[in-house]
């Protein structure tokens, strides 16, 4: 079973994602225009003792991975939790060229064109093959890096959840274990429904990552349901959006989250050494070093 650190470092701040302010998002995009600025912040986090980087399979993540591979000794304890897919590129593509061509665009190798020539029966049988191809395409950038947990992004987790395509969860779980020796993780905005569903799909004690914050921002099912699920220990949960994009003052937000019985870890993003240190210090105060 993968060991998950209590403090994980996130990446939204690097790619202009801010759920509360477009202006803030723009400032961050400017700040992190050069990959070297991202590396500098990652270096700060690493030097402060944070080893795990939870990162979207954004196009620019490749450059970061290249840097890490080129300086293997410097980053020898660094751990990556890839979160796939970077949904925007797929969503934009589906709008532009439709579902079929999108799959052709992103699946590696010529397997897709082979499938295209086959009968419909073959195609449906091979939906899992397609999923495996897409996972491999996303994982290419992380070659020779330590990726003990591989996450499905919430837009995909929750889409599968709504479509009730439950067997895909079990297949994802199986495949990342077999091919990458990794554990599957699931990011979701609907934790109660997800845990219920994963249990039915036969995935036990899953690694999950969800918004967990004092004001219940994007916690479908409600704060009380989340609290109860954590308490009963049916999952290994990572809290994200603890500050609800800045809507809750840091100290109040982190004291509340750290006080939740059964919470495994907190992932947070920050843009400077000072902010990383402050947040880390707040977590240490509740959880110890």
């Amino acid at each position: 079973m993968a060991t998950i650190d209590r403090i994980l470092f996130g990446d939204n701040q690097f790619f202009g994602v801010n759920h509360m302010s477009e202006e803030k998002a723009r400032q961050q995009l400017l700040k992190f225009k050069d990959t070297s600025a991202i590396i500098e912040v990652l270096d700060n986090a690493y030097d402060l003792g944070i080893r795990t980087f939870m990162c979207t399979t954004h196009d620019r993540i490749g450059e970061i991975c290249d840097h890490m591979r080129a300086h293997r000794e410097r980053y020898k304890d660094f751990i990556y939790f890839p979160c796939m897919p970077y949904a925007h590129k797929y969503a934009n593509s589906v709008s532009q060229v439709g579902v079929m061509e999108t799959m052709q665009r992103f699946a590696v190798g010529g397997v897709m064109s082979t499938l295209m020539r086959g009968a419909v029966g073959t195609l449906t049988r091979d939906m899992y093959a397609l999923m495996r191809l897409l996972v491999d395409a996303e994982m290419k950038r992380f070659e020779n890096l330590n990726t003990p947990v591989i996450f499905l992004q919430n837009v995909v987790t929750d889409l599968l959840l709504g479509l009730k395509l439950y067997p895909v969860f079990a297949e994802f779980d199986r495949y990342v274990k077999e091919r990458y020796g990794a554990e599957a993780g699931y990011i979701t905005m609907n934790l109660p429904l997800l845990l219920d569903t994963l249990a039915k799909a036969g995935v036990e004690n899953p690694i999950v990552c969800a918004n967990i914050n004092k004001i219940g921002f994007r916690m479908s099912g409600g704060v009380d349901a989340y609290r109860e699920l954590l308490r009963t220990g049916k999952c290994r949960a990572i809290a994200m959006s603890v500050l609800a994009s800045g809507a809750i003052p840091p100290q109040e937000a982190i004291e509340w989250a750290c006080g939740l019985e059964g919470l495994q870890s907190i992932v947070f993003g920050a843009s400077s050494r000072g902010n990383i240190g402050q947040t880390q210090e707040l977590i240490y105060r509740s959880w110890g070093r």
Partner: protein
Amino acid sequence: MSIRIGIVGAGKMGLSHFAIANALPDTAVVAVCDTSRYVISVLNKYAGVQTFVGYKEMIDQARPDAVIIATPTSTHFECAKYALERDIHLFVEKPLTLSPADSRALSELAIQRRRINQVGFHNRFIGTFQEAQRLVCAGALGKVSNIHGSAFGQVVVKEPNRTWRTSKSEGGGCLHDYASHVIDLMNFLVGPPTRVEGASLQTIFSQNVDDAVSAVFAHAGDVSGILETNWSDDSYRKMTTTVTIHGTGGKLIVDRQELKVYLREPRGFEDYVEGWNMRYITGLQKPVGFYLRGEEYSAQLEAFTEAIRADNMAHENSFASAYETDRVVDLILQANKPKG
């Protein structure tokens, strides 16, 4: 009573609606139709729904209580008419149709058949825009004089491949596909304009459709409006819609994340004080039962199924309201026509 839903069109919006509707309490997607046999066969095999290639077969054989139409705009009218004539509640993706006359006919038919008739202008379900509308209606800004609505994003940033979105006759182009959202939002906030004083549709990267739309509106009561949209702007990560409203008592600037309100002295309003006030989506958005890609997508379908259960014809985003948006779109097209 469980509501049985059929989905017409399993593209990006169709699949998104499918997932959300399926996760709503006492609501189940029972049938899907799409012309892509691959998508249909996967859904049939793994999602446990009946699948069809044509909407007529789906409606006749699966007999859903409600249908969600998420196909190219040019096909909405026929399909919606067929469903309404069979007394099926309807949720149709925006814009409703490409012709105000068609939209009005559908609205009348829906009212006559007493069927819920909703259109997917989801901005009306975003907490910041709802709060802005509440403030304007309550007179917090005094008498409104100006409204400015804009949307920018990176939909077409190079010469696109051919799909329905690149064909004007099928409902492609920035005006129908993108600007309609802003027009509807401006209608929501201050009511629809009576005239379009001038308009310009520009092509930037596309071959056959517009990529940027500007227009000047005149509203009743001496309110003037400006619309500005451009979907070939890759400086934005995703569609960014902003509305500014000026009134005699102050102004507001609103997007999907923030509401900034400036109140001129000597007036405050409720807990809004004189000068600048900031409100954020985190404090304004009501939670939804199932989240997929923005509360608004779930909230609009929750509202749709609630309206069906309550037999509430006075729901948000009716065909009548979407007709007003289609009417403004048409006025923009007229105003853009070369003179002489």
